[in-house]
């Protein structure tokens, strides 16, 4: 049974007889053109371009215009020679996550998101798909990818657990932030030359009902489920280039942490400033009440101050919603990357261990090199190559993301200052008009 949306949450499935309610995880029956309750992303320019150049969908997945949007090439990326990995020319799989809806059942309440996919690949039966998925499903996908592609860096998911008392899991803000992160995650997977062909991704995008049950009980936490159990091999020396990666990750992690803390501190200070500023503005209004000639100027100042306060509030909110999540996402990314490095180390350790053992045995009784050792070597080389490729891609994405982030914040700041300026300028115009009015009155 579904109930009408809660005051602060999202639109739920609505009131319908139970027979007509679609299973939240069903696909294809759902109309491809958006219903009246499609939540449109109205953020505008700031969100227009994501990591790999995919514009955020603002219209129905089925419409031609949205496809055209996606195929439009971003000037920036074309010019960037290093960003081969994110070139849109050869992309043939497009994915989007949007339209969050709350589902209430007797057992639990949860949110589902619409996951749309468009593709020309032959691995997919249809050119378009539309399914509903919940966070659990994304988590399942990620674990499956990690298990089946241990040599690759899997993009991170937003935090799984939220403290029930602290954060409202159904607030618009939280759901919006999470949804954007899920969208990013899926897009990154879809853009990855290897991961995007993973059958689990295919299932995720197309299946009516993800058959997750069988895998669930056996799954361990991300990072601990290493397919190739190293079995006690210890790595002696990590090659220099991977060492450098490790060091970079550690330092970068630290810096991100510091920036996060500073940003939070700024938000807090700004909020306190905002409180004082608002009160300050109202004092001008109360003064205006006891004045005659000065009433308009004082009211004018009060309203200009209020404008600035409003603009600052928007700015702080944007910082919370756009800036901090990206920082945190990269912290998670760093964690993932470190895990992959560790797995690589183990693969190397295993190979070296076996090799050593085999060499010793050959010395003893001329036993030829077992096939196992060669397989290990192959695996290791594969791993190294994959990792290096992923590393480059990740670096490139990171550069893009942060440039976008910082200039986005710059835009918002400029916007904020422009609003403040406009507030004050209108006051000056008001007062100067009055002055000329008075002057002409005097001469009469």
């Amino acid at each position, binding site marked *: 049974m579904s109930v009408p949306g809660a005051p602060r949450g999202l639109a739920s499935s609505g009131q319908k007889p139970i027979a007509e309610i679609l299973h939240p995880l069903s696909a294809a029956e759902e109309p491809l053109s958006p219903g009246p309750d499609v939540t449109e992303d109205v953020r505008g320019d700031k969100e227009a371009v994501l990591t790999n150049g995919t514009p955020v969908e603002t219209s129905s997945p089925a419409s031609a215009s949205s496809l055209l949007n996606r195929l439009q090439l971003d000037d920036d990326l074309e010019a960037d020679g*290093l960003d081969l990995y994110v070139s849109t020319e050869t992309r043939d799989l497009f994915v989007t996550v949007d339209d969050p809806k709350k589902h209430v059942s007797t057992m639990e309440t949860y949110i589902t998101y619409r996951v749309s996919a468009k593709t020309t690949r032959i691995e997919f039966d249809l050119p378009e798909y539309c399914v509903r998925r919940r966070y659990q499903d994304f988590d399942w996908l990620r674990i499956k990818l990690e298990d089946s592609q241990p040599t690759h860096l899997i993009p991170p998911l937003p935090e799984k657990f939220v403290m029930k008392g602290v954060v409202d899991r159904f607030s618009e803000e939280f759901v919006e932030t999470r949804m954007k992160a899920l969208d990013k995650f899926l897009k990154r997977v879809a853009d990855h030359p290897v991961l995007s062909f993973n059958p689990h991704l295919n299932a995720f995008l197309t299946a009516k009902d993800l058959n997750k049950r069988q895998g669930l009980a056996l799954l361990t936490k991300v990072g601990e489920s290493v397919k190739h159990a190293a079995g006690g091999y210890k790595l002696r020396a990590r090659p220099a280039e991977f060492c450098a990666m490790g060091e970079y990750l550690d330092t970068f992690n630290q810096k991100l942490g510091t920036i996060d803390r500073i940003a939070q501190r700024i938000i807090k200070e700004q909020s306190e400033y905002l409180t004082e500023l608002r009160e300050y503005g109202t004092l001008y209004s109360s003064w205006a009440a006891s004045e005659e000639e000065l009433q308009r100027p004082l009211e004018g100042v009060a309203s200009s101050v209020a404008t600035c306060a409003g603009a600052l509030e928007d700015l702080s909110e944007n910082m919370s919603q756009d800036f901090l999540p990206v920082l945190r996402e990269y912290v998670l990314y760093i964690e993932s990357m470190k895990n992959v490095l560790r797995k690589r180390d183990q693969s190397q350790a295993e190979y070296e261990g076996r090799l050593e053992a085999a060499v010793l045995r050959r010395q003893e009784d001329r036993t030829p090199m077992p096939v196992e050792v060669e397989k290990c070597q192959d695996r290791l080389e594969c791993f190294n190559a994959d990792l290096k490729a992923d590393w480059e891609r990740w670096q490139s994405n990171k550069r893009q993301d*942060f*440039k976008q982030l910082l200039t986005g914040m710059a835009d918002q700041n400029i916007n904020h200052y422009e609003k403040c300026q406009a507030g004050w300028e209108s006051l000056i115009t008001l007062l100067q008009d009055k002055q000329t009015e008075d002057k002409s009155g005097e001469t009469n």
Partner: protein
Amino acid sequence: MAENGRQELVITDAESEQLAGERSLNIVVAEQGCSLLRRMEICVAEAEKRSGKNAVNMQEMFTVYLIETRPMDAVAEGRNPAPEGRNPAPDSLWRRYSEFELLRSYLIVTYPYIVIPPLPEKRAEFVWHKLTADNMDPDFVERRRVGLENFLMRVASHQVLSNDKILYHFLTDEHGWKEVVFETGFQAKADSRLRALSATFRVRNTNKRFMDMKHYSDELQSHTSQLLRARARVADRLYGVFKVHGNYGRVFSEWSAIEREMGDGLQSAGHHMDAYAASIDDILEEEEHYADQLKEYLFYAEALRAVCRKHELTQYELEVSSQDLISKKQQREELATGVVRSFSFKGMTNKLFGQEAPEQREARLKLIEELIAEGEDTVKEKTAECEEHVEKAWVDMQRFEEQKDKDLREALIHYAVLQIRNTSVEQCQRVFPQDVKLKPYPKVFLPL
């Protein structure tokens, strides 16, 4: 109206070189009806620290201010030419803050119907955390110098006050001035606090306009002081916001060290964060001037209220002397007719001990007549005093109101201009300057 005592202030930089102080502010005033300022240029050019013994013979540090005056016609005629140029050297003397206070006290007592311009604050109040409350702080001294000059300008351009002899002595006679001011005996004429307070509570008929004005002065005082306090809190918080941004500077620099392509951009961003964090000091320093303008009117409110209370006092004294006259006349009547209308001890003793002899009654009647005559003179005097005060005070209060409206309106405009300047996009600087890949993005960067 030409003779309305308004000032046109023009600040000229050129003349400041000729004067002794580097930080002097030369104000040339041309205005009709202000006799003093027509004759001379006044400015408070410098401040200096001195040490000396105070009243209890202890060593103390204090600041003195250099007042420079120059007769206008001397400037025009080129009399007493200085060796360097055409302008003659100004006369100058040093004054302490306490001497300004003395002058002001004198003016308050001597002109109780004028809203006397206030002095800058004695101690720094409404401070936000970075500003010290130290009277010796150079910024405080500088602002006080400006405030003292402003005080002198206002007094010297006032139609009534500018003609005062004591003011002239203050400006020209360094050592003899105090003697002159004490000779006026103004301190004895000062209204006692008790009398003034008593008047406030017991006066019966006050002029409605004055009551309204008094009420307004309360409002003005309350609003300006609240505003000043709130502004100090806002300044404090804003300071915090800017300074925390400075932390970004360091972390961006550190981060830039581990990056290849992004390194330059991040380094640049870091520097600009530092610059941003540092900019708040100047911004808030400029705002202090606005705060000083508000403070002036906060103190002006007190001066306005003083005029209203003087009215209450004169009215009260008139009522008291009228009442006194009435009761004396009543006594006369009782004596004359022998009819006792009201209770009196004399009446009672008469009843108890018998009436007094006719000669005694004659003597007393004569005395009462004399007292009544005196009383009538007093009432006439008080009435005149009261009416004169009402008339003159009303004129000056009107003048004050116009001045206040004009000054505060200008102050608000300048405040708005200041805000615009400080949020100007031009203030922001570039980041990622070499990054042509980001061409659609604006080439400015603002701190987060």
